[in-house]
């Protein structure tokens, strides 16, 4: 395996334990978590650990934009699991690692989103496909969703269905109807008051 950054990390009971904690040598990094989410910083989880924990291919992805460290998470269909993608220092190393799980000899230009800079952003659909995920969710280090990309039609459906409840973004149709009703009520109230004022 190529030389990727392996942070100093101790894992306690992570396998098959949704309430596992991740701790560093300097102390606890995060407490008990809910299913599938581990309280990690973007550069702190070893891909080997995640691979072991989730029993799926984990890819180290260099996803660095304007010096902002990014945490890429993959959401799996029919599962509450969320996969964390770690970052790699070296894109060449990352590519080697990707190819160790992939089905072909991928090159940087195949999967890179932007080849004009000194950092490489990997295409989310490629990453999702490689990890056999239906969708990939990119988040920043504070776990705020930055973007969601579907890799399959099922993933697209899943995003559409889950975005309001799971991701807390967007409005379901029922809320839009409520907004329309609320608007109507305000108009009726203002209109009635105006009519009463003009009448008197």
């Amino acid at each position, binding site marked *: 395996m190529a030389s990727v950054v392996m942070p100093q990390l101790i894992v306690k009971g992570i396998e098959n334990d949704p309430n596992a904690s991740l701790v560093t040598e300097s102390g606890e990094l995060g407490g008990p978590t809910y299913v599938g989410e581990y309280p990690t910083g973007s550069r702190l989880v070893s891909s080997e650990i995640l691979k072991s924990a989730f029993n799926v291919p984990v890819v180290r992805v260099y996803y660095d934009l304007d010096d902002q460290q990014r945490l890429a998470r993959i959401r799996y269909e029919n599962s509450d699991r969320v996969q964390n993608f770690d970052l790699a220092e070296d894109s060449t190393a990352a590519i080697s690692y990707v190819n160790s799980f992939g089905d072909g000899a991928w090159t940087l230009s195949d999967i890179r989103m932007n080849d004009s800079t000194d950092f490489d952003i990997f295409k989310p659909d490629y990453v999702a496909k490689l990890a056999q995920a239906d969708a990939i969710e990119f988040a920043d280090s*504070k776990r*705020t969703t930055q973007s*969601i990309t579907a890799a399959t039609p099922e993933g697209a459906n899943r995003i559409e269905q889950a975005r309001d409840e799971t*991701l807390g*973004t967007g*409005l379901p149709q029922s809320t839009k109807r*409520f*907004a329309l009703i609320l608007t109507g009520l305000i108009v009726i109230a203002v209109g009635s008051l*105006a009519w009463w004022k003009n009448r008197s």
Partner: protein
Amino acid sequence: MTRGRLISLILYEGLGLLVAAAALVLLYTGSAKLLAPSAFAETINTHGLIPRDLTPHVAWGVIAMELAVGISTLWLVLAERRIKPAAIGAGLVFTAFAWYAGAMILFPPPAPTGCGCAGSGVTDIADWGAITWRNAATAALLLVALPLTTNRLAAQVGTSEPPTPCAQTRH
């Protein structure tokens, strides 16, 4: 009532309806955001323009502004029969939105995202150019065209719309 005055009256009422329509847009978008303020704040977060700590406050500020201006605009049109200040108030809000959308063109978000205009989420990818144009055109109509026209029409139909110096020079 002369024919000219009747036409002026119809035009004046029509303009009132236009301003009222702008108020309805503000009321709907404000209501939609009010029903999911955290989602709206989250969407603002993804724009990357406003510091993260401020986004919940900004979100509530925008919601309050849209609802307050929407209600007061509607009141001015329906109860006070004063189209000009109503048009100016709503126009300023649309101007602010146009500025924000324009800023998003100059400083694009880190990843494609929604505008949050009417509670749209981060997966409803925004076309910032179209949003800028839409809001700028509405603002221009409300801020420039409507007050000038309504001053003139108000004088003809004899409403209480206060004339501006611009309108006075025309008479």
